[in-house]
């Protein structure tokens, strides 16, 4: 797999923070993304699982496929917030089709 210059970036974050992240992504030139649900997990903050009552700490996955330069711009914008927002960031080299779109 030659690096085609695209990245799939996955950011796990609390549901109420999604609009904030979408704004940040837009400023980094990213307009395409998809949100995935989760069922639960564990980390330093202990175990959690979906509960209705308080959606405040329900996690979702922000999933976006972008070119290298947008990936770098997003990383720069998101990095300072990672700890305060308790987000998990993962980037993977990805092959895309119709590359102009991303």
């Amino acid at each position, binding site marked *: 797999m030659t690096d085609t210059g695209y990245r799939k970036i996955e950011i796990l974050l609390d549901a109420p923070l999604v*609009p904030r992240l979408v704004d940040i992504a837009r400023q980094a030139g990213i307009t395409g993304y998809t949100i995935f649900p989760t069922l639960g997990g564990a980390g330093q903050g202990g175990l959690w699982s979906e509960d209705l009552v308080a959606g405040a700490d329900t996690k979702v996955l922000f999933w976006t496929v972008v070119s290298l330069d947008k990936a770098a711009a997003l990383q720069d914008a998101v990095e300072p917030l990672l700890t305060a927002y308790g987000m998990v960031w993962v980037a993977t080299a990805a092959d895309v089709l119709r590359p102009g779109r991303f």
Partner: protein
Amino acid sequence: MSGMLAPLLSPVILFFVLGATAGFARSDLAIPEQIAKGLSLYLMAAIGLKGGIEVAEAGFSVDMLMAAIAGLALSCFLPLPVFWMLRRFGRLDRINAAAVSAHYGSVSVVTFVAGVEVLSSSGLPPQGYMVAVLALMETPAIVVGLMLARSGNREASTAGAGLLHETLLNGSVVLLSGSFLIGLIVGPEGFVSIAPVFESGFRGVLCLFLLDMGLVAARRLRGSRTLTARLAALAILMPIINGAIGIIVGTAVGLDVGTVSILGTLAASASYIAVPAAMRLALPEADPGLYLAMSLAVTFPFNITLGIPLYTLMATGLG
């Protein structure tokens, strides 16, 4: 006081106890998330309608205005003593103390519902307009909490206009006030055809919802890593103090005993839906595990079981 405690053996509370027991015992019993969300929307629509219809029947009154003003004032000022207690006895930093105080200034819809159930079955039904007061009391404390977070700390993150919009148009505020208005418009006759769902079904649905609340509260309490004994004690002390303040204010403005009791219950209750979401957005540095454990896993169960009878007793004593 044994009469006051009788509601503890109502099916509604027993289902809460069942849920909490199952949660502590690590049973895998679980209400699907969307079902629980659906039940809570139903409960809000139903109490909104009920309140609106009661006001449609009783008409507007000075009492109603006084109750609204009292509720607003409580929601604005209760965060202040709470903040002070959390800083001083709870040893919380400014940001976390501010976030928690916003929760205690705001209100819990389900605590309100349980209070109305208990009071009505004890012959002290509160006025229908208290649903509108409930909706009014949901959001001001959020703003006050944010001001507390910022005072002396310019760096605390801010959400600005977005947050205000989000808070005022919060789903539960919109659904409560909207259903209240619909109740006002359609009145008792218009309600007849939908009463089987929104009236006859109410207590049964409440049982199922409280079953879930018990499960969630127990899991939150078990899973919390930052809830100290001091904070847990405050999560019981603060509602008692806030409840007493609410009852004094309510009695002072001349409301009837049932209505004073529910105003005290509202003052004592802490939000665990609208405020956590707003705080996660506006003060991401604050620990959601903490404020949810306090409001949902300690204060809510306390209020639902011992708190409501206690506030009723206080109100009856003063009234």
